[in-house]
């Protein structure tokens, strides 16, 4: 469904991603592990059209993502939950969901109301906080809202940038369980980039490891988890 071939991306003088190749199948959860500055955020930003690719190809659902504008790509069924959640701080929880509505939301059965109901079923906290402004939510609630906002667009695939960032271990655990639940219910695929290898390896089907803008290792999650180098670098063993 998503296939990335030899993608090169950079800012100004600096090249950040070098020949990144990866694949995410329909309904598959794929994790990209990497340390700070590895280029994880850059990869997702290039896929969702926020920054241009310099070379290579990225296809999603039969369309080329290279050169496409971010505001169109959502409409193709690829949602991006950015690093730092980027909730609209001056809008309420409900209003954050309203602005995330797309043509696909309305095409789906039940329209916007059904999309909100489903998101609130996954994250009951959001229902309690409906009228609270974005900036006043806790980090965990903001992350829930960020994922709910992506779901409202009825995506076929979600790009998730460090959903664990800055959250307490218990909340992280719940968040990743919800990610599995979303896949089970909505059959959406997910590309999750993470530094928290433990949680990412728990939910992912396949894993890529990224270092300094290159994919250095790939494989099924259980295999990668047993790799001694990975254990040392990411699992603190």
């Amino acid at each position, binding site marked *: 469904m998503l296939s990335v071939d030899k993608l090169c991306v950079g800012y100004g003088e600096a090249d950040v991603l070098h020949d990144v190749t990866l694949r995410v199948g329909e309904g598959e959860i794929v994790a990209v592990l990497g340390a700070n500055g590895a280029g994880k955020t850059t990869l997702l930003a290039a896929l*969702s*059209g*926020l920054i241009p690719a310099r070379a290579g190809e990225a296809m999603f659902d039969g369309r080329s993502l290279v050169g496409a*504008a*971010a*505001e*169109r790509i*959502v*409409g193709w069924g690829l*949602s*991006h939950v*950015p690093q730092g959640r*980027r*909730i*609209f*701080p*001056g*809008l309420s929880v409900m*209003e*954050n969901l*309203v*602005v*995330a*509505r*797309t043509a696909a939301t309305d095409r789906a059965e039940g329209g916007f109301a059904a999309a909100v109901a489903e998101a609130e079923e996954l994250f009951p906290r959001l229902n309690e906080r409906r009228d609270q*402004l974005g*900036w*006043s939510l806790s980090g965990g609630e903001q992350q829930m809202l960020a994922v709910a*906002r992506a779901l409202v*667009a009825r995506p076929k695939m979600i790009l998730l940038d460090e959903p664990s960032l800055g959250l307490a271990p218990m909340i992280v655990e719940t968040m990743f369980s919800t990610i599995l639940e979303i896949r089970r219910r909505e059959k959406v695929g997910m590309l999750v980039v993470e530094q928290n290898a433990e949680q990412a390896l728990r939910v992912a089907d396949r894993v890529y490891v990224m270092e300094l803008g290159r994919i250095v290792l790939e494989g099924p999650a259980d295999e990668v988890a047993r790799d001694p180098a990975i254990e040392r670098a990411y699992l603190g063993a």
Partner: protein
Amino acid sequence: METFLQVLLSGATMGCIYAFVALGFTLTIAAAGVVNFAYSEWVTFGSYFGVTFAVILGWPLWLALGASIAGCIAIGWLFQLFVFTPLEGRHFLTSVSATIGIALAMQALVTLLWGPYPLTLPTFFGSSAVQIGTISVFPHNLLIIALAVLIIGGLQLALTRTSIGLRLQATAQDPMAARLMGIPVRRMRTLAYCLSAGIAGLSGFLVAPLFVVTNTMGFGLMLKGFAATIVGGWGSLKGAVYGGLLVGLIEALGAAYISSEYKELIAFAMIIVVLLVRPRGLFPERIAEKL
């Protein structure tokens, strides 16, 4: 008592004009981070468009009002094409200096197009006052206040209750996240520029009958509108409206009860006092605090 009410009414009238100017000026700041110091000239052009359509061409006033607003919206659209979009993403001082330069050029253009002599624009209701109880009122002042209530109220509703208004707010708060939601950020900003320009046209047209129309009239209003945005809170739409009203009222009260010579000074003394007590204005943007 009568004088007091009379003073309040004229203060509120000017307050509404300042509120319009401050609101239009703030809209582009809030929506796109564009500080548009050519806004004064947009207002001036609103007045001159009014004179052109109503006096020179002799169109009915309502039609002239609509055409003046449309003319200013066209200016706003040209600005987005040739000034704001090319400067997008630059430091805000770039847009400050660019728009100051353009403002000076536009001021000169006014003299070229309409000549150096002051012009006048009639009101909808003639120039005589009517008695309401014991105070005499110019109907034009009431029109200004009524339109301010209607338009500012309508804008508030549109921004907070319609999905396009919420999308405009989202664009203002986080353009990158807005793009990820599929919101056409460029078009939203253009909408904000055009709204801002429309308000300039309206204020120029409404304020013209209160004074004479000169090429510096927008500049004078802009000083007060700017004071209003500082008093109200930089970048806050609510602050612009209340700041404008406050500047208008205090200016009128000061002129009546302290000294009319120092009328101009009073607005600026007020800025200094407010900034000493509340450095971020009366209605600081709550969002900015969190970020």
